[in-house]
């Protein structure tokens, strides 16, 4: 039971990082990326390879993963600079599809469909360490960083760009730089989550980085409340404990848990968008059509 809860807590911390960073670009900058799992995957492969080839140091794995995911985030920043709204959604969808194919095909880097196995247990400066405390520390750090950035001038810049891009530019804001920075920061954070995930499960393959996961992350953010600090974390806890809670229901056959879970998540999102479009934590008046 302890192991089970510890695993669940680690998952919550890792997906909490993903939701918080996705919320940063989605909630503040209005960049609707359906490709967040791509950068989660990049970080996971990078972290796994560091552990396999070099040393399973968790901090080193996180730093390398953040650098690679953050660097390759330009693939996402470029379309974000040119197009908005539904056009960007389509572009990020395309990126997600390309990335999954590359993850499955680039055997020397990703192990192909079979993935990377036998990732050694993590250490910290040579001392064996559990992933949970590191993941919780990373989550706390990233929540703190997103809160500071969102409440400061950078958050104002992003929100200004979201609300009226041309007016933000007319006030001297370098929109391209701000968007690139925001996307880079968010994707680097997703990379950290990926490295922690690789070290936690000691096995990674493309299954964990598909569009389903990108949509799951988006659901966590939207259900919790876009543009809020705690919303994405609450959304993460809800969506990750839902299957666990369902598994405890004696009358529900284990094979049906997945389907019931999908129905519950889908219904929850539909109802939320009708009655609380800003999410569970979000500002009630936002998103409604009365304005």
């Amino acid at each position, binding site marked *: 039971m302890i192991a089970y809860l510890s695993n669940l807590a680690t998952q919550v911390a890792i997906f909490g990082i993903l939701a918080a960073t996705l919320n940063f670009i989605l909630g503040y900058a209005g960049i609707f990326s359906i490709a967040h799992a791509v950068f989660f995957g990049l970080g996971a492969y990078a972290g796994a390879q560091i552990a396999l080839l070099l040393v399973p140091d968790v901090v080193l794995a996180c730093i390398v993963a953040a650098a690679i995911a953050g660097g390759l985030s330009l693939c996402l920043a470029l379309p974000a600079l040119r197009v908005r709204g539904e056009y960007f959604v389509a572009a990020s969808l395309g990126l997600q599809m390309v990335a999954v194919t590359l993850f499955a095909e680039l055997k020397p880097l990703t192990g192909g469909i079979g993935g990377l196995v036998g990732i050694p247990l993590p250490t910290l400066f040579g001392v064996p360490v559990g992933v949970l405390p590191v993941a919780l520390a990373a989550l706390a750090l990233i929540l703190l960083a997103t809160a500071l950035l969102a409440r400061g001038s950078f958050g104002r810049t992003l929100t200004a760009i979201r609300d*009226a891009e041309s007016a933000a530019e007319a006030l001297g804001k370098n929109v391209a730089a701000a968007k690139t920075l925001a996307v880079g920061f968010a994707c680097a954070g997703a990379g950290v989550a990926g490295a922690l995930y690789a070290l936690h499960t000691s096995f990674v393959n493309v299954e964990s980085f598909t569009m389903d996961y990108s949509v799951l992350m988006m659901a966590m953010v939207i259900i919790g409340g876009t543009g809020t600090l705690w919303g994405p974390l609450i959304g993460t806890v809800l969506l990750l404990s839902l299957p666990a809670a369902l598994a405890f229901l004696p009358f529900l056959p284990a094979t049906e848990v997945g389907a019931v879970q999908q129905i519950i998540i889908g219904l929850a999102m539909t109802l939320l968008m009708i009655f609380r479009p800003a999410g569970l934590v979000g500002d009630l008046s936002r998103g409604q059509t009365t304005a």
Partner: protein
Amino acid sequence: MSAARGSNEAPLRCEGLARSFGGLQAVAGVSLALPAGQVTALVGPNGAGKTTLFNLITGNLRADAGTAWVRGQPITGLKPWQVARLGVARSFQDLRLFTHMTVRDNVLAATERSAWFWQPGGTAGRKRRLAAAEAALEATGLASLADARAIDLAYAERKFLSLARILAAEAEIWLLDEPASGLDLASRMRFADLLRSATRRGVAICLIEHNLDVVAELSDRIAFLDQGRVIAEGDPQSILRDPALAAIYFGDRHEPASAAAETEA
């Protein structure tokens, strides 16, 4: 005073600016200088190229020909944010407020130019920006609404908020696109006071305005645009009394189609 200065010393100057859309020559070689401490009104029928001229100056549109200078520095080819940083602020006809931000944040955002994670200048810089924002809110009468969201403001307050952003940006050149339209008399007088205190500081203002009473009340000079050209330039009295210009402005010269275009504004 500034009236004695030649146009070479005007903070903003453009020469031969031109731009066409497909077959339509929207701006056909406009040369104009905005002297410091004066309000220049751009007047002309709809489709004369007034807003397009603004867009060419601010870099929102690329000019087919011509150049613009800010204090002698050519700005043609610069991006809008680069032009803004040289001290050119503009307002939009449709305002483009940061709707989901508070009034104070709208104005603060105008003082924060860096797109980096933080602003330069440390605590002292932050205090200075906050003070500039508060002063702009005070001057526009929005101080008591500082914590309201922009989207919840009434129409006149929204117009003043778009002006507060420009005030807080501390620009020396203001391009205002129909800033007074839809304002009642009292608001218009407050607006006139704001313009006068800005010109006293030496700000060069160019405004697009359709109401000729407002133009007469606010402007020191008028540039009359028609079909992409400045066809007359001078002090308000002589321009407004010119019967030929009045005929163009009120559409006598045109077919009934221009009357329909007039109501679109």
